[in-house]
């Protein structure tokens, strides 16, 4: 069925093309319009055939399969000239470290990138030194460990994927470095997911063993359980650590991790827009100026008087 319709389509396209050339060259308008009409009809029939063929394999999607669409929140970085809230990033790192980091890695983020974003140089150095990294083997070839440096990446909780799966009943906690970019809905989705665990799934929903219900997760059944509870962490700046506060902060942190260039990008964008739009206006003016002489040129023709 499908191959047939493909063939039909190709054939009709070829027909349409020959018709078009025929129409272009021949002067007989009547026959060319006839060709066009048959071509259009053929194309229409083929298209509907294709659509029908497609519909045969289509599955009905339920709302649950799509997942609940997350609402839009007033993120500090919403708007073309708005930066991240770095105080929130700082708190968010704390939430990541104390909560998320138990299962989720942050492979693509190096310690040094936190410097000047959410922590001072010495703070990050101290944080990095708490972790051990593989060092060069010693003189006898035995593996050695060294404390972390700024140049190292933030270590994950598991040495490899198998270990991560084994510790989580076969589910792999995704790396969070780019999670905000990797999920439809971005920050809004992450925030909704973190705050959106109902205490009971809706009536009639049957979950697999070990799964949790979250309406925002496509399919509704998610291996990750609710992790954020009020006062789970204690913020150094005294911000009350409610669930939504922590969710906001950690989402802000993860958004920064996904888009570390964000603030600078918006600054550069502002510059680029100003420069390019003024260049555009100037070039319009210069074009008019250059053409003015040509466009206002006058030709007058006085026929020469006959000499004789």
């Amino acid at each position, binding site marked *: 069925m499908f191959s047939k319709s493909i063939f039909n389509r190709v054939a009709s396209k070829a027909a349409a093309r020959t018709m078009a050339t025929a129409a272009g060259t021949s002067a007989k308008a009547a026959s060319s319009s006839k060709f066009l009409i048959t071509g259009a009809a053929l194309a229409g029939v083929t298209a509907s055939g294709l659509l029908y063929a497609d519909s045969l394999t289509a599955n009905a999607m*339920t*709302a649950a399969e799509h997942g609940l669409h997350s609402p*839009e929140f007033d993120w500090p970085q919403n708007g073309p000239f708005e930066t991240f809230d770095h105080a929130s990033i700082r708190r968010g790192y704390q939430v990541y470290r104390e909560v998320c980091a138990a299962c989720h890695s942050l492979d693509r983020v190096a310690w040094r990138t936190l410097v000047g974003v959410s922590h001072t140089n010495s703070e990050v150095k101290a944080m990095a030194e708490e972790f051990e990294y593989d060092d060069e083997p010693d003189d006898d070839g035995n593996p050695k460990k060294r404390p972390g440096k700024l140049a190292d990446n933030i270590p994950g909780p598991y040495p490899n994927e198998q270990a991560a799966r084994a510790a989580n009943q076969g589910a792999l906690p995704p790396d969070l470095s780019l999670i905000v970019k990797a999920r439809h809905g971005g920050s809004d989705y992450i925030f909704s997911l973190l705050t959106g665990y109902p205490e009971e799934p*809706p*009536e009639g929903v049957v979950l697999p063993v070990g799964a949790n219900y979250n309406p925002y997760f496509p399919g509704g059944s998610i291996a990750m359980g609710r992790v954020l509870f009020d*006062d789970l962490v204690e913020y150094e700046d005294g911000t009350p650590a*409610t669930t939504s*506060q922590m969710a906001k902060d950690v989402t802000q942190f993860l958004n920064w991790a996904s888009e570390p260039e964000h603030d600078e990008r918006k600054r550069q964008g502002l510059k680029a827009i100003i420069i390019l739009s003024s260049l555009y206006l100037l070039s319009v003016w210069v074009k008019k100026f250059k053409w003015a002489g040509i466009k206002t040129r006058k030709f007058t023709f006085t026929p020469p008087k006959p000499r004789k």
Partner: protein
Amino acid sequence: MLSSIIDYVEELKDQFVPYVAKAEDDVEDSNDADEDEDEDDEDDEDEDEAKDQYDELKEECLNTEKGKELHHHYLECAERVQKQKEQPGYEDLEHKEDCVEEFFHLQHYLDSCAAPRLFSKLK
């Protein structure tokens, strides 16, 4: 979170066995759910609001006209499904109804109602 909604459902379940639950009555009882939540949070930070801002807003939204209506729809569905579950041969049914759609409608409304106001309450 959705704790309050779920509380209603649970209460409803409890009540269900002896007699047919009255959905509207449960909505009025929302204060009970509040107290349950407060117990968890009150331990260390007294001067701060002990309750999650998002939950508070959602609860507020649940008590609006539309929130009540959607909640009522959900409860009705929950009741129906409960009933079906008690029918003999439920396990073998080819199609089992669930309340995801009603839940989504309610939840979507609560989200759209609470989300725009939430971040002004957070830091």
